[in-house]
């Protein structure tokens, strides 16, 4: 751990209880930031932010330069952590021979990496550089507080917290809140920095889809509303009723 106290960062004369000093508004919620340049945060080598997601709001995929620890203050939701190379173990079942070609065409079978749920009181640990997303599937606002451990050994960049967005257009959200056009082209997701032709080549898609990846005209920000709710493959969560676990149904074919 890179101790900032060794560089004289911890010569603190007073400590204050602090409120967030900056926020980033988006379609489906808001992220509030505590100023990481305050002495206490610099000394501890950390930064703090708070996300508020409305019901049916999706935090778009992103990764950070440092490991993060999330505490769920209120609400519930689901999240996915994508580690490149890990298997896609959540998958739709195989087609049966009885299904017609038409049925097969209509019913797309997806497979993806593991999805987990989180709820009030949970701590979630996410390694540096690991891409993740979150979705509020509850009926109340989802509030999470996030610690970024910027001086952790896993971060070899400087102590500034950095978020690399894989979708969306965060600056647009900020503009809406601040009513300023300054910096309109300064922030974007990582695909924005790649050439459109390069994206068509590496993803094997047309130019229109490649431009969608870049999200240049996306005005929703980094948290978006999923109009009809998010449909993903996930196991049913067991419910407890009066201390008794509901039985899960099992069925299968003969060998």
């Amino acid at each position: 751990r890179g101790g900032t106290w060794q560089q004289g960062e911890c010569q603190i004369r007073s400590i204050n209880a602090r409120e967030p000093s900056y926020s980033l508004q988006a379609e489906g919620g808001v992220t509030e930031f505590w100023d990481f340049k305050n002495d206490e945060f610099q000394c501890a080598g950390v930064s703090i932010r708070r996300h508020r997601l409305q019901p049916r709001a999706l935090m778009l995929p992103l990764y950070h330069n440092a490991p993060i620890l999330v505490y769920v203050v209120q609400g519930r939701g689901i999240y996915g952590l994508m580690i490149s190379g890990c298997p896609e173990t959540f998958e739709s079942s195989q087609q049966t021979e009885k299904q017609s070609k038409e049925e097969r065409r209509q019913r797309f079978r997806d497979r993806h990496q593991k999805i987990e749920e989180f709820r009030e009181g949970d701590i979630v640990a996410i390694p540096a550089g690991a891409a993740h997303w979150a979705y509020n599937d509850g009926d109340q606002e989802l509030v999470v507080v996030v610690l970024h451990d910027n001086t952790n050994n896993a971060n070899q960049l400087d102590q500034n917290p950095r978020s690399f967005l894989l979708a969306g257009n965060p600056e647009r959200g900020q503009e809406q809140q601040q009513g300023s056009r300054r910096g309109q082209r300064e922030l974007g997701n990582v695909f924005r920095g790649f050439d459109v032709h390069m994206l068509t080549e590496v993803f094997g898609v047309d130019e229109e889809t490649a431009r969608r990846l870049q999200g240049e005209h996306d005005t929703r920000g980094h948290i978006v509303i999923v109009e009809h709710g998010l449909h993903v493959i996930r196991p049913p969560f067991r419910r407890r009723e009066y201390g008794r676990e509901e039985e899960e149904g099992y069925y299968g074919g003969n060998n």
Partner: protein
Amino acid sequence: GLEETVCNAKIRENLDKPSRADVYNPRAGRFSTVNSLTLPILGFLQLSAARGVLYRNGIMAPHWSMNAHSIIYVTRGEARMQIVNHKGQAVFDGGVREGQVVVVPQNFAAVKQAGEEGCEWVELNTNDNAMISTLSGRTSVMRGLPVDVIATAYQISREEAERLKLSRRETIIFSGSGRSG
């Protein structure tokens, strides 16, 4: 463990043998790595290395390093390379050729496509087990995302999302047409 002392530790490994490749695509090239698992002394040094060879127009998948900076030295040929920071800005977009060095900071997204002559490079990483995460391909982040998340995130149909997710079946070394060069 006398055999494990620093006095007689193994400190050499040849990365250039094609038969040693960790990733190989007959149409696009190969990629070999050496880390503390294959050369234990690298655990002390906290360093690792990789060797990449791209054939004509071959593409190294867009990716970021999760835990290391990468210092790339081009040993032969040339490639077009793009490096993107956390603001979505291309901090490098240009050609690299034999004898040049490029630093790719941790977490910065990078892609390279070889030119007509192909491209070979060695990359030295500041972690003894450097790990990359790819944006496209069979083992990429995009593959790990549910189709509904992709469709919502990029405002595209489920069919387009499916195509985006599945169209590239290679892992990190892709064949390319050269149109983007």
